[in-house]
């Protein structure tokens, strides 16, 4: 027993060190640098801060609630029903993650324009909520869907045999068992919405501010680090509340399940066909339409439609001072490094979280906090903290994938822990009694059901990195432009061709991530050929 705990501690040390060095230490450094008690009192007591806080919380809750409502049916269809194009739909959901906010804004406006709704949409809270649903839809649909697809259907069948209706079966049998997965992904979405930045500034317009945009304004535009740090501390308090609530909730409701391969069935009857249709339709409206608007925009050239924008990207007459191919290579290098780090560190953390007692909740919460930390301050903190040997990483390109991995790790943990936790301890004991070494128990009992979740988590980690999501915009780094940065550069010069090529490059970026996720999804649970 003692060796078991030692092994667990050793395993915990790697992810703990990672998040300690690359997140807690930089964040603490910048907060200490800017901390000033009187500014803190003044900022927290300011009615303007209260207004910003209220809006931050309201828009985050509304966005998350709507996202949950719209994405759960899609999760159900992806998990339980087999239909043509399911795998493609599953991969396409991730596409928004890689798109720069400026591009998404352009796609939304183009869409609203064709619907004649521009004036009622632009710079409203609805625009913010719509964009948040667009970005986060996949987090719920894919994570919950992956867990759901592995739930044993026997309890539902028993309930139906015993006379429960469809609705009752769902609310009393299925839904409670889904809670751990729902809690896990909802927390991630809530944190993203709580600290969202570009969406607020660009789609919300100049009249709306959240804690995150205010932190950025004070740190970058006014260079008042004391106010920025005070606001960041306030933000952190709320992030900790969200994280604690979610880990406690998830833990309390997690019951051992026998997870395994359950082949989805073809839709039977009108009701199920309708369900598939509804789920697909929601996904098409939420994700498909803005993406289609973007693709349409990328094909527009000189008043007609052609592949000219794509051709020009290759021709080298553009305003981004880097060839798209070089940017693509850089993006892939960063993304592969970030995915490798997030996958290995995240899996180690997930193993610890799923195997230990009450302390595990706090441990898991630790990895969620980076999702809710201010990107600006984290970027600045890394500059201040990681500036001396042996950790002089300020100008190392490693800092970029490491920062991306901080966002990717919670995806890996949250998508694998529900499955790992659902493995019955008795199964492990049985394997051990039969002579399996701890390593073999892990490999043959724990890992297989976690693989599907891992694929989902790794897919997100890859997309996060490819899209330069999070703090890396605020990390000064050696010139090594990535695809998103190349898109920004195109959009920072006047000229029709620049706009068209930026749209074309965005389409390439989203095709790339959809392809990669399709590929990752192929590494799935042995024996479940249908997913």
């Amino acid at each position, binding site marked *: 027993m003692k060796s078991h705990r030692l092994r667990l501690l050793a395993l915990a040390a790697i992810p703990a060190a990672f998040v300690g060095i690359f997140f807690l230490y930089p964040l603490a450094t910048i907060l200490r640098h800017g901390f000033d008690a009187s500014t803190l009192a003044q900022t927290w007591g300011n009615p303007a801060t209260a207004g910003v806080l209220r809006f931050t919380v309201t828009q985050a809750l509304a966005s998350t609630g709507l996202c949950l409502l719209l994405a759960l049916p899609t999760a159900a269809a992806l998990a339980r029903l087999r239909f043509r194009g399911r795998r493609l739909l599953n991969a396409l959901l991730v596409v928004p993650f890689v798109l720069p906010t400026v591009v998404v804004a352009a796609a939304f406006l183009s869409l609203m324009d064709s619907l004649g709704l521009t004036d009622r949409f632009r710079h409203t809270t609805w625009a913010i909520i719509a964009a948040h649903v667009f970005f986060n839809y996949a987090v719920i649909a894919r994570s919950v869907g992956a867990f759901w697809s592995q739930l044993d259907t026997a309890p539902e069948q028993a309930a139906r045999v015993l006379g429960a209706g469809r609705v009752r079966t769902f609310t009393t049998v299925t839904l409670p068992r889904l809670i751990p997965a729902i809690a896990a992904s909802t927390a991630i979405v809530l944190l993203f919405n709580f600290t969202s930045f570009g969406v607020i500034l660009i789609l919300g317009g100049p009249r709306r501010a959240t804690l995150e945009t205010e932190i950025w304004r004070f740190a*970058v535009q006014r260079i008042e680090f004391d106010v920025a740090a005070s606001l960041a501390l306030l933000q952190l308090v709320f992030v900790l509340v969200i994280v604690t609530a979610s880990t406690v909730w998830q833990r309390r409701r997690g019951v051992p399940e026998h997870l395994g391969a359950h082949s989805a069935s073809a839709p039977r009857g009108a009701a199920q066909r309708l369900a598939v249709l509804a789920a697909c339709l929601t996904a098409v409206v939420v994700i498909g339409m803005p993406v289609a608007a973007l693709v349409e925009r990328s094909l527009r050239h000189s008043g007609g439609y052609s592949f000219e924008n794509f051709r020009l990207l290759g021709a080298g007459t553009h305003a981004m001072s880097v060839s798209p191919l070089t940017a693509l290579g850089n993006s892939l290098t960063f993304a592969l490094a970030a995915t490798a780090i997030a996958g290995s560190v995240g899996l180690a953390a997930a193993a610890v979280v799923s195997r230990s007692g009450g302390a595990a909740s706090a441990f898991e919460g630790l990895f969620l906090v980076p999702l809710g930390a201010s990107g600006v301050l984290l970027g600045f903190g890394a500059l201040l903290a990681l500036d001396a040997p042996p950790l002089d*990483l300020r100008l190392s390109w490693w800092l970029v994938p490491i920062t991306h991995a901080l966002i990717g790790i919670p995806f890996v943990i949250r998508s694998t822990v529900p499955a790992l936790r659902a493995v019955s301890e008795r199964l492990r004991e049985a394997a051990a009694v039969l002579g399996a070494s701890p390593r073999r128990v892990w490999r043959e009992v724990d890992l297989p059901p976690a693989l599907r979740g891992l694929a989902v988590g790794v897919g997100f980690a890859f997309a996060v990195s490819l899209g330069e999501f999070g703090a890396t915009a605020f990390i*000064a780094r050696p010139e090594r432009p990535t695809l998103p940065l190349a898109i*920004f550069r195109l*959009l920072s010069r006047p000229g029709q061709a620049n706009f068209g090529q930026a749209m074309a490059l965005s389409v390439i970026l989203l095709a790339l991530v959809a392809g990669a996720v399709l590929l990752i999804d192929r590494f799935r649970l042995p024996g479940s050929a249908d997913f």
Partner: protein
Amino acid sequence: MKQKFFLSMILASLAFAVVACGGEMSLSEVDEGATGDSGETPERGVYELEGGTLDDPLMLSSEDVVVPEATGDQPASGSTVRLITHDSFAASEGVIESFEDQTGIDVELITGEDTGSVLAQLILTKENPIADVVFGIDNTHLQQALAEELFVPYRSTLISTVPAELQLDPENRVTPIDYGDVCVNYWKDALDGPPPESLEDLTAHAGDFVTQNPETSSPGLAFLFATIARFGEEGWEDYWQRLADGGVEVTAGWSEAYFGDFIAGGGNKALVTSYATSPVAEVVFAEEPPESPPTGVLTDGCFRQVEFAGILAGTTVEAAAQALVDFLLSEAFQEDIPLNMFVFPANGNAIPPEEFLRHAAVVADPLSLPPELIAEKKSEWTARWVEIVLR
């Protein structure tokens, strides 16, 4: 438990340090031969520029402006100089390399986000600077940078080529590299009637005009400064009240305004806050090369932005840094600036490409404000602006 945690942290950090720092040892090389004393820099001939007009650049024979080297016998050769700049920095392929070839100095380019973000990073790291030279601090940020004592003075061997009105720091802590004017642009075909000719005229088009929030955008801030410079501290609020009443649209940044609301990207606004040189880009980056740009410039009420380079205090390669600043001011780099960053070279001898000169609007009478006044009043002004325009 605690000990174990720290032990593992140290182990992990060592592992990462080995991986990450392997290739960057040369950065800490101290250059003993650096002579940073600006007094010893040999003066080149001082050329008087009249009004700094670029239509009539003064002629220098090409031998006068070879790529300069730092004082002494290439003391900087073999060292690496780190150049930090904002995300709008761009140079043609081979330009920086030509400097490296001629001097034996390696340039490591570090890109941050916008100017504010880069300045914030420099202030945070001033005890242990992240770079040796910064390029891109402009006159709206200058005073703040100077007050933080970020720079060591250097009088470039080429400073005499720069018009006096661009040299905003008499102590030579920063060197002017380029300048441009923030002006209102309009889409020629979208205006009913003649285009506005003055800031006063603009109020009649307020409902057709999109600008940027000065609290979040650099051109937005520059345009606010232009109105303050024009109408004075008493009059600018009234002017903006009229724009607000007329329905001026505001975005957070330049891209959303230009490619979102402005007609260029499919929007419906005919006027936008941009640059005097934006029409050049509309020609260079057009889908079909037009005879003349689709956009025009309101040349009244433009705010002049000057961008500077500075050597960061604490650099260990001062001679190399000086050579780099000289290079940034040399014709080789200066003539490459216009079509890459769409601003004018500060060096009066550098001749911008013909198509740049043909399509860039000439701003006869740009507006400006003293950097000290900007530093003192910026927060107050932008807060007032928010109350007038956004509330």
